[in-house]
């Protein structure tokens, strides 16, 4: 085999979460009453527009979660295969040269020369103090001073053209499929999409896709010849680092939820449903945990994990595995510190549901507690859980940045938005300023969190029974 797959802990959990989500969807497909709020969501323009952006980030994160170790080339085929120490992901392969083409140090976006002056040996003897040419960025230009602008414009135009073609193909595909399914003519379907007469807001989806494609395609084309977003202190491409940061943010947001959900759901429903000493005990636990300021509890736990990992080096072989283990612990800690809010909400709801007639009737028929909870309580608190998960997502992505800044976030060697911002603090103090890594982290993080926030809002509108009733009354 040319490579050896590596499944990191977080990869496994991420894919477990993905399959759980798919399973959840399959379970609901045959139950129209559970599907109704999702159908509302599918028809919301805000939800679908932001979901397209979110899907882009999730796709990047998933592609970046398929890890392997490439086989080292060896002259003798009889030998046992040996694999590189470095763990790569599918994303590293897809972006190819971005990862390997590192410069000496800082260079501005699309630059052809280094950011710092260096002494260069002239071919005819003698030395010159100047900005040296980059090894890779714009290396194909014979005369950067005159060729640079036309070349950049040409590549941007090519990228835009490429994006337009791709988008047109997609639009044709969507319209074609829709036309076949509804049995209408192609032109008719297209007009229906254009005037938002379809139940699913395809126009919004296509516009969002167009925005992503028209932004990404020029970036991708330019990235083949230049460092589009510049390079950082050790000459790594900032665009590549930003793409890698997406996975870290995504993992923190989803895995912490994975830890928090079972805790909050089980304890919250138990407290509300059983009452009595169970309720007292669970309330005591969450009041106690809640009374410790979140950042301090996380800081204390991470400090202890640091000591634990320093004294147990046998737990990991490569740097990637160490980073991964620390990320996993961080998600665990974030999960343990953040379940109390949802738990309290679920307790209150279960307390109310317990008194409902259908629950009383189930008791009278001798249905077991476990069955009452799974058949009657859980489906009726599902909307609270879904809304809480969606709202937590953006909070956790933002928390990662702050925690990494405080020094209790992900491993300092791991690429994450927090570590990028942290490094940028020193870069801001330079004169002239190195602004590009901060700007890229800012832009990507803003789009990611904003789309998550907008999606969560739409989700809440679709799921909150009060709001649905109110909007129905209005209509």
């Amino acid at each position: 085999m040319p490579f050896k797959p590596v499944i990191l802990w977080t990869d496994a959990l991420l894919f477990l979460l993905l399959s759980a989500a798919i399973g959840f969807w399959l379970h609901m497909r045959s139950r129209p009453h559970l599907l109704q709020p999702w159908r509302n969501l599918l028809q919301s323009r805000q939800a679908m527009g932001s979901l397209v952006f979110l899907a882009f980030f999730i796709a990047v994160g998933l592609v970046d979660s398929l890890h392997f170790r490439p086989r080292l080339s060896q002259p003798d085929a009889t030998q046992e295969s040996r694999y590189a120490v470095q763990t790569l992901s599918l994303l590293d392969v897809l972006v190819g040269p971005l990862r390997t083409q590192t410069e000496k140090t800082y260079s501005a976006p699309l630059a052809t020369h280094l950011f710092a002056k260096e002494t260069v040996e002239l071919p005819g003897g003698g030395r010159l103090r100047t900005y040296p040419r980059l090894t890779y960025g714009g290396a194909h230009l014979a005369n950067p001073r005159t060729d640079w602008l036309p070349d950049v414009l040409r590549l941007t135009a090519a990228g835009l053209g490429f994006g337009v073609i791709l988008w047109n193909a997609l639009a044709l595909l969507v319209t074609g499929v829709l036309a076949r399914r509804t049995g209408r003519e192609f032109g008719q379907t297209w007009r229906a999409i254009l005037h938002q007469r379809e139940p699913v807001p395809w126009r919004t989806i296509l516009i969002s896709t167009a925005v992503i494609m028209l932004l990404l395609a020029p970036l991708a084309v330019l990235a083949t010849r230049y460092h589009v977003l510049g390079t950082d202190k050790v000459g790594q491409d900032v665009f590549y680092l930003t793409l890698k940061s997406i996975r870290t943010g995504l993992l923190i947001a989803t895995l912490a939820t994975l830890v928090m959900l079972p805790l909050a759901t089980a304890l919250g429903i138990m407290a509300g449903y059983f009452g009595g000493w169970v309720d007292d005990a669970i309330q005591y636990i969450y009041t106690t945990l809640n009374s410790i300021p979140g950042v301090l509890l996380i800081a204390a736990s991470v400090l202890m994990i640091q000591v634990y990992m320093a004294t147990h080096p046998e737990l990991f072989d490569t740097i990637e595995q160490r980073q991964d283990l620390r990320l996993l612990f961080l998600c665990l800690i974030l999960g343990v510190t953040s379940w109390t809010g949802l738990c309290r909400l679920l307790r209150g709801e279960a307390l109310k549901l317990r008194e409902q007639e259908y629950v009383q009737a189930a008791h009278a028929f001798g249905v077991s507690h476990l069955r009452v909870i799974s058949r009657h309580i859980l489906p009726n608190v599902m909307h609270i859980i879904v809304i809480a998960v969606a709202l937590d997502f953006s909070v956790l992505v933002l928390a990662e940045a702050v925690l990494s800044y405080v020094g209790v976030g992900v491993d300092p060697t791991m690429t994450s938005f927090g570590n990028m911002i942290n490094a940028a603090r020193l870069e801001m103090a330079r004169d002239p300023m190195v602004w590009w890594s901060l700007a890229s982290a800012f832009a990507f993080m803003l789009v990611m969190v904003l789309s998550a926030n907008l999606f969560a809002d739409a989700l809440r509108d679709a799921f909150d029974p009060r709001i649905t009733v109110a909007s129905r009354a209005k209509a």
Partner: protein
Amino acid sequence: MAAARTEQSERDVRQGFNVTTYLIRRILYAIPILIGVNLITFALFFFVNSPDDMARLALGGKRVTEEAVERWKRDKGYDKPHFFNAQEQGHARFTNTIFFSKSASMFVFDFGVSDDGRDIGTEIRTRMWPSLAIAVPTFLVGLAFYITFALILAFFRATYVDVSGVVACVVAMSISSLFYIIGGQYLISKLWHLVPISGFDYGVDALKFLVLPVAIGIVSSIGANTRWYRTIFIEEINKDYVRTARAKGLSEARILFRHVLHNAMIPILTGVVVIIPSLFLGSLIMESFFSIPGLGSYTIEAINNQDYSVVRAMVFLGSVLYIIGLILTDIAYTLVDPRVRLD
């Protein structure tokens, strides 16, 4: 008339009595929670890793002699058993343990000494003033701003003003607080040279150092807060008494500022009063970005230097302040909402 007054005062006395008994009960209820917090921190700091491991890490690497580890533990007082010391006599069996000397002592606010040999209690008492100097203005001015904005949005609800305001709030919420600080420092201090970039001074000179962190603190949480208060107001506006007031012909402004604002105080108080005591702790990132010698930067330094006793002390102090906040919230409830009775 006189009878009515005695009845009134009698009720006051009864209410006062109720408040006292209620308070005592709440304070008693806080004790098991604080014991729980204490046990959690104790378990976290002494069971996840043995003191030997911590000593090895603090002294650096694996090649540390056994004597050095023992000396480190003795200096810190970590060389005792966890809960029960069998070698001692009488009550020293319980007092001469790690738990008693490191964790139980925190109940009387004896926090011990930090790694650099200073008394943590004294340090907290001197460092809380700079923290308060930032946190109190941020809190008060911020609250006024957020409620004003939210009232404006609620007044123009379901118009373009409201919709664009809410969108602006969501965008503001989606920006990490780190960017607000970095951006603010860059624009105001580095580009326009209006105020010093960071630092702190006591007395009137403090003002020029305080303006920027307070302003950034307010701006960075404007999105989430304005939206939150707007939701409260909108919920209140949809209630029946507002319809009655409108039917009586009251102006919209009068309804909003007299009726809605008054009644919205109850949900607002729940969220606000609980954080007042925690203002003492200051803000971690704010104080470290602006080099303010408060409790927030004290905590950050402790985390970076792995000074466990300071972190332990701050965790305990934080929980005490939070529980005080909870009790204050209950008292505030009875003051603003006559319907709430304490029993």
